[in-house]
Every structure is written in structure tokens, then in C-alpha cells.
């Protein structure tokens, strides 16, 4: 094994940071690349306290976890290259990166860990391109990172955890949430999250969809309607709400650009956001030197992304000879235990089963 070649981690969000930290701790050379000018991915937008147990830093706010990961990576002296976009990966594991949109470099990697995250889904309806219609993540970035309010009266489409968390955070920044619309008959997010909005008087509209958005040069009102059994709006139930903002919280899709370029085989898993790279129990893709971690390997949460990153980091370090068999096994076992703890209960079981299916499928091929 050529020990001088670095492990290249793409994406400095929670998964990538944790992978890089594990590699560096084990003594492996690692380079962490991110297209943004600040590391942390979406973690610094998460101003709420996380779920889980003490081992998952439960009860700690997302940005606090982000700060401690950055501190750790700084202390370890990890080579973090920001404003660096990876635009190509070839079968020889050469990573083509463009720095500050100006210079380009080829990095020969021993292993590649892809932590490229996911993209928020759009939803098309008449008027959806109007200024004022945006993803929930866009609104979250504006209020929690830049501290500007995109609007005063907000309608949220989608009642999953993203929709209800961003709805609560919009109220914390002073906006009014005029409603949360959910096409399914039941709300999707954790009851403790929806209860925060309910007690603030936010109405939930289940079995309802957005029919159109209207306004001259920007959003002025939205029309919603109940849906029938085949999710078609029922015209007689239409009602119009005065809003200047619509936030779409209708799921995320794994970002597959780089794993596709690397030749990783994919699998369709609707529970985890759609098409995603196959991976084994160590987060290794169908290309043995390439790992996929976090949302790009199936959309879950920051807390699971961090554990997946650790899993891949440990296994990659071991595979290059930087960790003993026993150490690897021990670290993998404890990480898996923490992961499993997060994939239980009424919400987690579905994700646990989906992940099990992916791992099983990866063994068959």
C-alpha cells in the first residue's frame, strides 16, 4: 500500500468532518475539500437542540456541535481546503479540484470519501417560480446564518421535520407562520416539533396541497385545497391565504454527481430520498476505494451523518494499515451501536430497514 497518498474527503459537513477527524486521529494523511468558503455544511444553520443520547451530543444545539467539530479538526491540523470544488474523479482515483474558481489541481487519492450531501426537492405548481417561493433550507440559511427575514407571513409546504423545524425557527426570527400544508392524512415530523408550532397557534392542514401562488412581481397569496384519494385538489375546498413567502419542505435527494463519476453503482430507496449509491456496512461503495457517507448515502439526519463519517474514516484508515484489526473492530462496533440507537422507534425503524436492505443488496452484487 502506498502510504504517502492521502485519503481525500469531499464535503466538510458533519459526515465529512467526522470522517476526516477519524482518519487524522489514526495517523492517515487526509485532505478535506469543500466548495464553500466556510466548513460545517448545513450544521451551522441548525440552531435547535439535537435528539439522541449523550453519546450523540443530544440536547446540544447543532451549531455548537459544528463549532466543536471545527475546533477538533483545527487542533488535529487537518488539511482543509475551502472554496475548492471537485469537478471530476477518474477510475484511478485522481480527484480534479478547482480552487477559488481560478486554478485547477489533480490530487491522487488512496481512498475517496464522498460526503457531498443532498439537494432539496422542488415542487412545481402554478406560480412556484415567483419571488417569495423558496426551499425551507434557503429560509433557514437566511434567518440563522445571515439573520435576515425573507418574508413576514410564511406558508410551509411539507410537515416533515425540516418543515416544522424551519417553521419554528422562522417564528423565532419574528415571522408569522400562517400554516403548514401536508398532502398526507398525517403529519410527518416528530410530535414534539409539531407541538411547538401548534401551541403558537400555527394551523396544520393535512390532506391538503398548494394549488397556486400568485402575485404581480412577487408572492402575494397562495391558494391551498384538500386532496382526494389520488392527491388531486378538490376545487370546492380551495382557500386563499395572504402570504409573502412559501417554504418548500418536500424532501431531499442525495447528490450523486461525484459517486456517479467514480462509477459507484446505485440503488433506488424512496425512504432515503431516491437514487443513491449502494454501500456496505462500512459505508464502502461498489468501488472498493470509494466510501459514501451522510445524506449522499441516503438522506437522514446530521447525527446519523456524523456516525457514518466516523465509520468510513475508521474503516478507510484500517484498510490502509493505519489501524489494527482489533481497534478497527472495536471502533466499528461502538459506532454501529450509536447508529442503531438513532434508527429505532416509529420514525427510525423505517430507515433502519432501508439501510439493512442497501447493505444486503451490496453483498449480492
Amino acid at each position: 500500500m502506498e502510504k504517502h497518498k492521502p485519503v481525500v474527503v469531499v464535503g466538510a459537513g458533519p459526515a465529512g468532518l467526522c470522517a476526516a477527524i477519524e482518519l487524522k486521529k489514526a495517523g492517515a494523511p487526509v485532505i478535506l475539500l469543500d466548495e464553500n468558503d466556510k466548513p460545517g455544511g448545513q450544521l451551522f444553520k441548525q440552531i435547535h437542540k439535537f435528539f439522541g443520547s449523550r453519546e450523540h451530543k443530544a440536547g446540544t444545539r447543532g451549531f455548537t456541535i459544528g463549532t466543536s467539530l471545527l475546533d477538533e479538526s483545527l487542533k488535529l491540523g487537518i488539511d482543509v481546503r475551502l472554496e475548492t470544488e471537485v469537478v471530476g474523479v477518474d477510475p484511478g482515483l485522481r480527484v480534479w479540484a478547482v480552487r477559488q474558481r481560478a486554478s485547477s489541481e489533480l490530487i491522487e487519492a488512496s481512498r475517496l470519501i464522498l460526503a457531498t450531501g443532498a439537494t432539496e426537492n422542488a415542487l412545481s405548481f402554478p406560480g412556484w417560480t415567483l419571488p417569495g417561493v423558496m426551499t425551507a433550507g434557503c429560509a433557514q440559511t437566511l434567518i440563522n446564518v445571515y439573520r435576515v427575514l425573507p418574508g413576514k407571513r410564511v406558508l410551509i409546504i411539507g410537515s416533515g421535520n425540516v418543515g416544522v423545524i424551519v417553521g419554528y425557527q422562522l417564528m423565532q426570527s419574528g415571522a408569522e407562520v400562517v400554516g403548514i400544508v401536508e398532502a398526507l392524512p398525517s403529519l410527518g415530523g416528530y410530535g414534539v416539533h409539531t407541538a411547538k408550532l401548534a401551541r403558537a397557534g400555527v394551523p396544520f392542514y393535512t390532506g391538503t396541497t398548494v394549488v397556486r401562488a400568485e402575485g404581480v412581481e412577487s408572492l402575494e397569496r397562495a391558494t391551498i385545497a384538500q386532496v382526494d384519494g389520488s392527491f388531486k385538489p378538490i376545487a370546492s375546498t380551495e382557500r386563499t391565504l395572504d402570504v409573502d413567502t412559501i417554504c418548500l419542505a418536500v424532501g431531499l435527494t442525495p447528490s450523486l454527481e461525484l459517486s456517479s463519476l467514480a462509477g459507484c453503482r446505485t440503488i433506488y430507496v424512496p425512504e432515503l430520498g431516491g437514487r443513491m449509491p449502494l454501500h456496505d456496512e462500512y459505508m464502502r461503495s461498489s468501488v472498493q476505494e470509494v466510501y459514501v457517507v451522510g445524506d449522499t448515502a441516503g438522506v437522514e439526519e446530521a447525527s446519523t451523518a456524523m456516525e457514518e463519517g466516523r465509520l468510513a474514516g475508521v474503516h478507510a484508515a484500517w484498510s490502509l494499515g493505519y489501524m489494527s484489526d482489533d481497534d478497527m473492530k472495536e471502533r466499528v462496533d461502538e459506532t454501529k451501536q450509536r447508529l442503531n440507537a438513532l434508527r429505532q422507534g416509529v420514525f427510525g425503524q423505517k430507515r433502519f430497514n432501508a439501510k439493512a436492505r442497501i447493505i444486503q443488496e451490496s453483498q449480492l452484487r
Partner: protein
Amino acid sequence: MSATERYLKTKGAPSLAELEAVGMLPKLEDLARGACLCIECVEEIPCNPCETSCPNGAIKVGDPITNLPVIDREKCTACGLCIPSCPGLAITMKRVQGDRATIRFPWEYVPVPVVGDEVEMVDRLGNVVCPGKVIGVNAAARNDRTLVVGAEFAAEHVLSVISMKRKRS
């Protein structure tokens, strides 16, 4: 959970019947005996900071961490440390004395309430139930920016009151 009501998954918050069905509605005698811990966490989510925040072992989640929390009222000293520890903001402390009730609840909005504020107490769906008065605001650093607000109001509303109405700036 009640088979007839689905408030939590349609209106966003549990009804009193749904809470009662999982043993999370306090009994009136508990509320009269002293400050009474109330946890409204009726779904199996992976979370246990309430358990680890309690210095007296009065809240049990155990393994797996998706278990619903179980309260040991004998061990609870009503210190309130669990209130800001809950990421779901699902913990309150209530008490009834004569015709007045008090509640301590988590709060994360500006403007920060001030002792003496005349406020409107709300139920789980945000309906104004009765007037109230802020009697305490705890902003201790260990709460990590979740304020714990104390308020008093008419005792007859003790079961329905969960928080207070947000003031619009």
C-alpha cells in the same frame, strides 16, 4: 393512544385524551401535592436528555432510547433541570394551590419575558385560555439559551394550559 382522536398527527399537538391514554396527563392530586413534572412525549423517538439531566434519577428512558420517559414522582424534587434539557420542549412543571395554578415552561422567543408581565396563557393548539402573570424567568447558562418561564393563572385551567402567547414585535 386514543383510537378516536388523532390530534397529534392532524393538529400537531396531543389532546388531553391522547395524553391520558399514555399516562402523561398528571392527576389532580399530584398537581395539588406540589410542583408536578409533566412530560408530553408520546412518540418513540431516539432521545433521552431528560433522563440524563435529572440528578435524582426521577426520569427513566432506559434502553432502547426510544422508550417513552417514565416519571418516578417520589424521586422528583421539581428542580426543573429537565425542562430546558428537552430538545422537544415537551416538559413543564405545574402546581395547584387553592384557586391559583403555576407553570414553569420552556421559552425560546424574543422579547424575553420579564417578571410581572401580564400575559395570555394558551393551550396546546395556541388558543388563549386565560390571563396569566410571569412570576419567574430563568436564563441560567446551563439551559443553553432555552429560557424557563414561570407563570401563574387560574387553577381551573391547569390541565389545558401549556405555554403563553408569543408577543409580536
